[in-house]
């Protein structure tokens, strides 16, 4: 092995950048979808109708008990089968991540909702709001404000986990880097660069979470 040559990174920057964009897009879809569906699932989980609450709990337990990489695999084969046409790895990965993360976001949101004093929801109901309206206007806005740091932390983990789409050859940042590394036979330089990029993004984001948590503490 000769001396390190980081020119290989610069030469392939546009290609790697494309991969990183896929990673960002996948994470963004899973974060938005996961929080949206997670909030809905959390409401179902807290429902007073037993079968509904149990079904939601079942969903959460299932997705939290299966490795993410397996879910990504499954959906890679399942989604084209269900849709009846070839879809490519991005759509199946986006669905897999969204459904997987929904389970985690659901538990974060449920805990946030349950941490609010019951008097708040009573005050809303006493003024004529339905339970759903009280959730929507009184409980959720407060719960989300308390939960923001944990939601962001989960989102950082999610972003790191997007590198697992390597197993279905989705051209994200990790997969692109691996392609370049093998073509150029510069594994050390490329993987050092990949590590630095993931570290920088996640470290900056986690600092951001910290300032957020201070800003919100009352």
């Amino acid at each position: 092995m000769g001396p390190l040559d980081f020119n290989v990174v610069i030469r392939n920057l546009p290609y790697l950048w494309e991969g990183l964009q896929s990673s960002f897009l996948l994470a963004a879809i899973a974060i938005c979808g996961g929080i949206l569906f997670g909030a809905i699932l959390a409401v179902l989980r807290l429902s007073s109708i037993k079968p509904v609450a149990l079904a939601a709990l079942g969903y959460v337990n299932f997705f939290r008990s299966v490795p993410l990489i397996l879910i990504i695999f499954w959906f890679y084969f399942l989604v084209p089968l269900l849709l009846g046409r070839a879809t490519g790895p991005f759509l199946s990965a986006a669905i897999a991540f969204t459904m997987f993360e929904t389970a985690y976001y659901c538990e974060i949101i449920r805990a946030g909702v349950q941490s609010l004093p019951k008097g708040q929801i009573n005050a809303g109901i006493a003024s004529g709001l339905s339970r759903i309206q009280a959730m929507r206007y009184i409980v959720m806005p407060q719960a989300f404000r308390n939960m923001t740091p944990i939601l962001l932390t989960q989102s950082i983990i999610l972003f790191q986990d997007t590198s697992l789409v390597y197993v279905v050859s989705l051209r994200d940042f990790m997969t692109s880097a691996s392609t370049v590394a093998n073509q150029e036979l510069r594994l050390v330089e490329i993987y050092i660069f990949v590590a630095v990029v993931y570290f920088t993004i996640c470290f900056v984001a986690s600092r951001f979470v910290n300032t957020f948590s201070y800003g919100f503490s009352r």
Partner: protein
Amino acid sequence: MIEIRNLSKWYSAFQVLKSCSLSVKRGEVIVVCGPSGSGKSTLIKCVNGLEGFDQGSIVVDGLNVANKADLRVLRTKIGMVFQSLELYPHLSAMDNICLAPMVVLKRSRAEAETRARALLARVGLEDHAAKFPAQLSGGQQQRVAIARALAMDPVVMLFDEPTSALDPEMIKEVLDVMTDLARDGMTMIVVSHEMGFARRVAGRIVFMDGGEIVETKSPQEFFTAPDSERARAFLSKILDH
């Protein structure tokens, strides 16, 4: 206006309300007092269906509380103020007041805000509309909570120990607002240990102990000549200190 008949409620084996009956006329102010755990709060929470009950009936302004279909309409007509204040901390005083009128009564923001401003003026807080609950004192928060309840144009107001969580110097400002409200003819049920307020404002005083309504009397009679030993014991505890 409010007709409570033979109301009973159990928490599993423990009976919290024992066949309570109370009839409240329009414009009447009832103060409910009694030792803690006597069922006062539970009783008024039954009036707007925040607590269910097992036997008996409650009819408010012609609507049956036990009827689930009427319950939401009924709640729009019954304002409630809580011991723990329960302003929404993420909303300004103005938005606290406007939320239910806009969401439930479908009033426009402009309409709701005009009304809210008038109500804030009524409780002496017209300059605090933009403030958040954390920026207000306990007494101010409770006055906003009263304005919030009034924003739905209720025909009945329920107060569940509205001054118990307040510092002593803030109690008067809240009681003054409640006194004004009573003078304006609002029908009110107030759970409170503020005996000065009860003496001045109450039409009748309801004394509860152990889940029962032990006596219902005018303030004059209640304070000078209570029938029961339990009421006498209670009064000596809260008046002689």
